[in-house]
């Protein structure tokens, strides 16, 4: 079972490598282009990695360890940009900050100055937008890490003469370093995987290269060549994230955990903390989403197309979530015997969707040649497979966390009480992880809603999802039209993300 799940993840990865090595059609993509695209990807990932590290850590430190106006709201609200697809944020900001856009016309005319850049369609513009889209990964990881720290360590630091800032730098931050590395690695994986935003901002990364090689040149080989460095980078980030996680495991082993007494930030310091969090939330959620909503007024959207795309999106997200959770559950139950499988699954998570899709093209071609007719069903099945391969690890995480509550002695107890190994898993493991399956499913669900490149490559002809629809409108420079599908994604994912973050926020050590 676990082997099957691992196979599903490995299939597309093997497909990419084979495709890249296989063909000899080198004419269409020059090595120089490949290098340029790769450098852009690396540079962008580095910029966003640094920016998210600073912003996410600062925000987490504020809400986890301090008391200031609005803290309990920001504690979960700052994770909400996770619900906004990065491409929607890019559409909104590009429009909002355009030289000829209403905001800057107003600024020039009324305030007499302009912003110090002509266009946001640049690497730094992309870095700005992707930072806003992905800082929640760092924020969530660091908030959890800070909350997990026992007050004792910080009190000891205080007794040894550290003020609040020094305690952060010398104690809290070093203790949370594994979480920081993990959060930043996740954010950078997302940057490498992003297609919609960078494509729209005309920043040529490896992911846009893959999609272009496939859609424009129709060349699997060159697409796979773009995919190879991405795959290597993904593996590197994954290794970073995993080794960081190893360090995290022993701070749970402390003898006594005591909740940190939040330090009150008085007067202007408290208000500037609120201001910082408020600005972050405005920039990451309110402003871009508000602008999309504003643009919708006076627009007559193509409702028929929209509702059909919504149906497709829900179908894919629902089916994908179900399949992924099913496979992840099998994998989680099986990996206690076969830990390698879990590691392979996480490689899938690090792998951009575009790479997954390219990797599935070769097996897909084989399936097409064998089974003719009923093409839509097969294409959708392949798409679901790509989702499952990519998101298996995301689903695996909460399920594994649930399984951690099952001690080895519980399984052994079930054995001595007359159950076989499989029966014991069904009677003990499954009921205990049941609660986490919903969490896992929802995480996968919203990820699929926002997914663009794999869907774009593998979907059946004319099978539009909300994300694909938004992408098409945006590519045709019909930006206001791209608003409604983006907002529909948001309408589904926002409540889900709220529920998830509040649920995570309630979890504390010892519970």
């Amino acid at each position: 079972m676990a082997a099957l799940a691992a196979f599903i993840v490995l299939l597309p990865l093997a497909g990419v490598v084979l495709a890249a090595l296989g063909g000899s059609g080198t004419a269409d993509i020059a090595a120089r282009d490949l290098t340029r695209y790769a450098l852009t990807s690396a540079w962008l990932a580095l910029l966003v990695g640094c920016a998210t590290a600073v912003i996410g850590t600062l925000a987490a430190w504020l809400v986890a360890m301090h008391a200031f106006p609005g803290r309990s709201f920001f504690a979960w609200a700052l994770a909400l940009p996770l619900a906004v697809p990065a491409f929607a944020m890019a559409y909104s900001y590009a429009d909002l900050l355009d030289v000829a856009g209403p905001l800057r016309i107003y600024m020039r005319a009324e305030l007499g100055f302009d912003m110090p850049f002509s266009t946001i369609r640049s690497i730094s513009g992309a870095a700005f937008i992707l930072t806003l889209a992905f800082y929640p990964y760092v924020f969530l990881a660091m908030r959890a890490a800070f909350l997990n720290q026992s007050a004792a360590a910080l009190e000891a630091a205080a007794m040894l003469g550290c003020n609040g800032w020094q305690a952060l730098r010398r104690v809290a931050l070093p203790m949370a370093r594994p979480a920081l590395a993990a959060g930043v690695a996740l954010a950078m994986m997302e940057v490498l995987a992003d297609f919609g935003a960078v494509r729209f901002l005309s920043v040529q990364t490896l992911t846009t290269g893959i999609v272009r090689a496939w859609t424009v040149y129709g060349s699997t080989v060159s697409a796979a060549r773009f995919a190879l460095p991405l795959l290597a980078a993904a593996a590197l980030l994954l290794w970073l994230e995993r080794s960081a996680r190893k360090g995290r495991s022993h701070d749970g082993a402390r003898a006594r955990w005591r909740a940190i007494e939040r330090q009150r930030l008085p007067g202007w310091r408290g208000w500037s903390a609120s201001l910082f969090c408020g600005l972050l939330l405005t920039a990451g959620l309110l402003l871009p989403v508000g602008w999309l909503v504003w643009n919708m007024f006076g627009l007559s959207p193509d409702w028929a197309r929209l509702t059909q795309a919504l149906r497709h999106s829900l179908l894919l997200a629902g089916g994908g979530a179900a399949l992924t959770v099913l496979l992840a559950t099998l994998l989680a139950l099986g990996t206690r015997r076969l830990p390698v499988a879990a590691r392979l699954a996480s490689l899938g998570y690090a792998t951009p969707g575009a790479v997954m899709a390219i990797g599935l093209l070769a097996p897909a071609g084989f399936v097409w040649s064998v089974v003719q007719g009923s093409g839509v069903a097969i294409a959708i099945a392949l798409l679901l497979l790509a989702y499952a391969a990519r998101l298996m690890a995301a689903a695996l995480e909460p399920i594994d966390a649930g399984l951690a509550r099952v001690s080895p002695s519980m399984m052994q107890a079930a054995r001595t009480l007359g159950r076989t190994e499989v029966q014991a898993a069904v009677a003990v493991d499954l009921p205990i992880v049941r609660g986490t399956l919903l969490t896992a499913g929802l995480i996968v669900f919203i990820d699929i809603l926002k997914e663009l490149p794999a869907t774009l490559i593998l979907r059946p002809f004319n099978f539009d999802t909300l994300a694909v629809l938004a992408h098409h409108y945006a590519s045709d420079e019909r930006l206001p039209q791209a608003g409604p599908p983006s907002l529909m994604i948001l309408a589904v994912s926002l409540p889900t993300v709220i529920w998830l973050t509040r649920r995570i926020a309630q979890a504390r050590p010892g519970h």
Partner: protein
Amino acid sequence: MDDHPILCLRGVTRRYGLRDVVQQASLDLAEGRIACLLGPSGCGKSTILRLIAGLEPVDEGEIRVHGETVASAGASVPPEQRGIGLVFQDNALFPHLSVRDNVAFGIRNQPAAVRRQTVEALLARFQVGHLADKFPHTLSGGEQQRVAIARALAREPFLLLLDEPFSSLDGHLRAQVRQSLIADLRAVGTSVLIVTHDPDEAMLIADQLILMAEGRILQSGAPGDCYDNPVSLVAARLLGDAMGIDVVVAGGGAQTPFGRVAAPDLPDGPAQLVLRPDDLLAVVNSIHPGIDGQVTTLRRVGAARTAIVACDLGEIAVPLPGAPLAQGQAVRLHLRSGAGRIVPLT
């Protein structure tokens, strides 16, 4: 020992990598009795329990239940088919099941009515009937343990294994819980094997004591017999303070500082005289052979009085039953008649 042991181990060895955690272990358990496996932590006693339960494979030797082999190198009856109950040190109750459902877990194949009856009876027997609908995390440690024992007994195992059952309880509570639990287990009448590292506990509970150190079983027998007739200094020390004096056996006895002590079963050669503190007697103005020394300290704990005597063997604590001694007084240490055992060197 019974002619028909319910469980025997013969030359059982278990290796982790190159290390033999259990080495050539052999033992017999008799029906309806409480046996204690005593040894320091890390000596392999928990591993023996897991080997018996079937949770680990045997690398050498074999385990027989009612004369039938259940485990040998390369062959093993799975734990669910062995009919042995195991109570884990952490109790391992299922957090998602109520107390009632935990206890019923192992007997789901029985008709509902029988099942309900069994569960109610066991819960009542172990005084946790009022907790039937509660969930494990709301129970105290002692209550969880009673539920875990009831759960293991529901399948009517022919043998119940308990891994350090009292180690998580402390002080006077421990003695109390232990006493009532052992009484309940005796009333049920199941054969029990308890692993413990506490010699007093083992002496108190056991019908049969099994002494273990460094992966080997040293001695097995009635607790009093193990205490009085240790097979070695190590075995003696597992059950309390003991001191060894090197002697040489010749012709069925050995000359010791206290005179000749019989050793009828030992071959000639070097051996050890094992002494318990209460084997010695401090006497003033003695003419009998013994070791001369001086009282350095007098101690009194409750009713028991002890003199610390400095002599050639070091500082020895000697119990003082009668005659009062003064600090600094010269005494001679005697061996009580019949005390002291000559054992082979180990």
